[in-house]
């Protein structure tokens, strides 16, 4: 096929008479659209800033706005799911790190801190319960976290 601009069928010699007649009539055919009435409707729709009122089926605008809404909802779901997953993961991580800290820190730091605190606070306040030893974790606010974390470490 050549790249030259083609000639219209109606201008082509040797075209069948029936086809020529049909094409001529179809080319001259007008559906009789009422331009004045249509213009009034269009101007009113443009003034409202929205699509023209229609009793017909769905419109391209409706389709595109529906698609946009679907995208927004989809994004919101993804972001929401991500946030929930992140908060769950970080919550678990903090628990785990607390456990690790408790397990690792307790032998090194707690006795010293506990000992100091025990010396300052427990010296003034003797134990209220007979079974409680001075300086035991349950009485020492500084060791409260470690006390809670201990069962997990086991």
């Amino acid at each position: 096929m050549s790249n030259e601009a083609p000639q219209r069928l109606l201008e082509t010699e040797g075209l069948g008479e029936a086809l020529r007649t049909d094409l001529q009539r179809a080319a001259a055919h007008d559906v009789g659209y009422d331009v004045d009435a249509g213009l009034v409707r269009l101007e009113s729709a443009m003034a409202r800033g929205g699509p023209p009122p229609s009793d017909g089926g769905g419109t391209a605008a409706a389709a595109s706005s529906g698609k946009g809404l679907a995208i927004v909802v989809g994004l919101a779901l993804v972001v929401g799911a991500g946030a929930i997953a992140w908060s769950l993961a970080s919550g678990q991580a903090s628990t785990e790190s607390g456990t690790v800290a408790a397990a690792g820190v307790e032998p090194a730091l707690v006795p010293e801190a506990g000992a100091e605190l025990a010396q300052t606070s427990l010296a003034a306040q003797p134990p209220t319960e007979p079974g409680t030893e001075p300086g035991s974790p349950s009485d020492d606010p500084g060791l409260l976290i470690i006390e809670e974390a201990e069962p997990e470490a086991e």
Partner: protein
Amino acid sequence: MNEALSMEPVIDAGELFRRHAAFVANFLARLGVIRTELDDVVQEVFMVAHRRGGFRPGPARPTTWLADIALKVNANRVRKQRRARVEARGETVERAADERASPAEALDHRRSVDRVQQALDALDDDRRSIFILFELEGESCESIASGLGIPVGTVYSRLHTARRKFRKAHDRLLARERPRGPRGAVAVVLSLVWVGLRGAVS
């Protein structure tokens, strides 16, 4: 050339409508939009043109630019209403039949337009729109290419295929309508009587 084009003012949707609403309506009818939906679709096309800020002069003509919008708007509608194109046949040609001087002429004219419409139905939307714009609306291939946003070579190629399919479908329709003996003659006479009666009633 391009600088000169860019200096031309933008044509707003209202002005486009005044100049080209009839073109868009005819184009949509040839694409198969039925008469009862035609006004809605025409309105929608020009609302899209309005949202795009009107027509900016460029390589495309306003008609081919609007034709591109019309194609997309119609494709969206057809996707939702598959029946629309099936019902189109016969409705878009009424006006032509009503304006003929004699019933015989009216029938003949109506059949011509109907045959073309049915032959167009044999084409897919891409080839159909190019055939309509080039063969019936007299647009140039360059303007069609710019308006539809495709290379000129693609327009040539689609036009070539469209013509082949159109002519084949048209030939088939002619062969089917050819009167066959006395029964065919009776059918023609009855058709003429029917058209005459319709004219008398209206």
